[in-house]
């Protein structure tokens, strides 16, 4: 194959066929893809055995830079969509994958990303079963954009949702916040900060699985763009209730704290790519916390606040005062995921 992606790779001819066969099918390696039909044919029986509802989610990935400590755009594309599916309790099983490639992209870069996607998919127990490739002229896209859509079955006995949130419910985060945002900001703005800062990009289903048996769990969301702040506002929007976060209880990696202090930024607004927020009834909160901490991905889980009747999103500071936590008016980090 040629060393760079050309328009021929997207034109449906020999170059494209070679790319699909030698790179995508080879790397993603599963029986559905191997059939090379226009569509993936998935057996319903196996799916229906677990529940009556299908969870279906889609996301596009345009992160810049495409490689970063802790991951790359490919790993993000698999985890991000798999995690969105998992938030309702479904085990993510099948993904589609659409590539938009910029003419001139180095083939070795694409190979690295595809390899990363394959490894991540295997780790997450997910199969990439159908896909598409387009190539656009130089300048019409920035190196590589990826869209993934995913499905999984929601277990019959699980019906989590933000409308169930009630005052007194506890807010639990599955680990340290702002890792991904701090990593990307450092690279993109060339801040030259060198430390143990890496993206937390990872599959979250193991944590979800640990929470399935706990009856007090109300709802889960993965905290991506907009960070913890955005999730708090989403919960308020749907439930009508207020939420207060205790600043002293937020788990923060020391290096990420250092970045935030140096730049004067609030970690609550930074993106995450491997963290979820769970709302759990007061009575079940401790049990949920221990279940999360028993998983590798949730080892640093912490209870960070509570739902209340105020109708506002607030942060309680270490000096005791409460302040409003607004949604930032501008995106502090464009193209973070």
């Amino acid at each position, binding site marked *: 194959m040629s060393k760079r992606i050309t328009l021929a790779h997207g034109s449906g001819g020999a170059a494209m066929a070679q790319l699909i066969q030698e790179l995508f099918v080879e790397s993603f390696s599963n029986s559905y893809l191997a059939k090379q039909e226009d569509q993936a044919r998935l057996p319903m029986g196996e799916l229906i055995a677990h529940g009556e509802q299908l969870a279906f989610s889609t996301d596009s990935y345009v992160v810049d830079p495409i490689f970063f400590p802790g991951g790359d755009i490919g790993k993000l594309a698999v985890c991000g969509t798999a995690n969105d599916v998992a938030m309702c309790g479904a085990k993510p099983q099948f993904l589609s994958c659409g590539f938009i490639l910029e003419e001139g992209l180095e083939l070795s870069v694409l190979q690295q990303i595809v390899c990363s996607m394959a490894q991540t998919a295997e780790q997450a127990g997910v199969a990439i079963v159908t896909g598409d490739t387009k190539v656009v002229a130089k300048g019409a896209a920035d190196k590589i954009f990826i869209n993934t859509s995913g499905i999984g079955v929601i277990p019959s006995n699980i019906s989590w949702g933000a409308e169930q949130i009630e005052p007194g419910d506890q807010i639990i985060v599955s680990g340290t916040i702002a890792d991904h945002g701090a990593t990307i900001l450092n690279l993109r703005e060339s*801040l*030259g*900060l*060198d*430390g*143990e*800062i890496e993206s937390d990009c990872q599959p979250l289903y193991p944590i979800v699985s640990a929470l399935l048996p706990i009856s007090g769990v109300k709802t889960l969301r993965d905290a991506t763009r907009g960070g913890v702040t955005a999730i708090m506002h989403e919960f308020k929007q749907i439930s009508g209730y207020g939420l207060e976060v205790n600043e002293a209880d937020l788990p923060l990696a*020391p*290096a990420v*704290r*250092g*970045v935030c*202090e*140096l*730049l*004067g930024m609030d970690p609550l607004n930074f993106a995450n790519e491997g963290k979820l927020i769970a709302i759990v009834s007061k009575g079940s909160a401790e049990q949920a916390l221990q279940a999360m901490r028993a998983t590798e991905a949730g080892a640093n889980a912490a209870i960070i606040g509570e739902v209340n009747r105020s109708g506002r999103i607030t942060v309680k500071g270490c000096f005791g005062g409460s302040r409003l936590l607004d949604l930032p008016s501008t995106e502090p980090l464009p193209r973070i995921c």
Partner: protein
Amino acid sequence: MCLGIPGQIIAISDAANMLATIDVCGVKRQVNVACVAIEPLDALVGKWALVHVGFAMSLLNEEEARQTLAALESMQALAHEVDDFTGLGHSDKEKA
């Protein structure tokens, strides 16, 4: 704009260009030490400095920091002494 954070100088990375590596909470960055330079430059290693826009702007006087904190601690000790002397614990004060 006034944002300055204390960090520890852990190495001189480029003496000719007055650059040192500073550590803030495990995050390392190159900072220019021209404003705090002493002879020899190596003597800066281990010292704490205030970092502002990529420059070390002042060496932190650790003795003064200790004294400032000691003043706060002595206030706390005094508060307890007064409580003991008057026979009042904090909880009694609240009741009264």
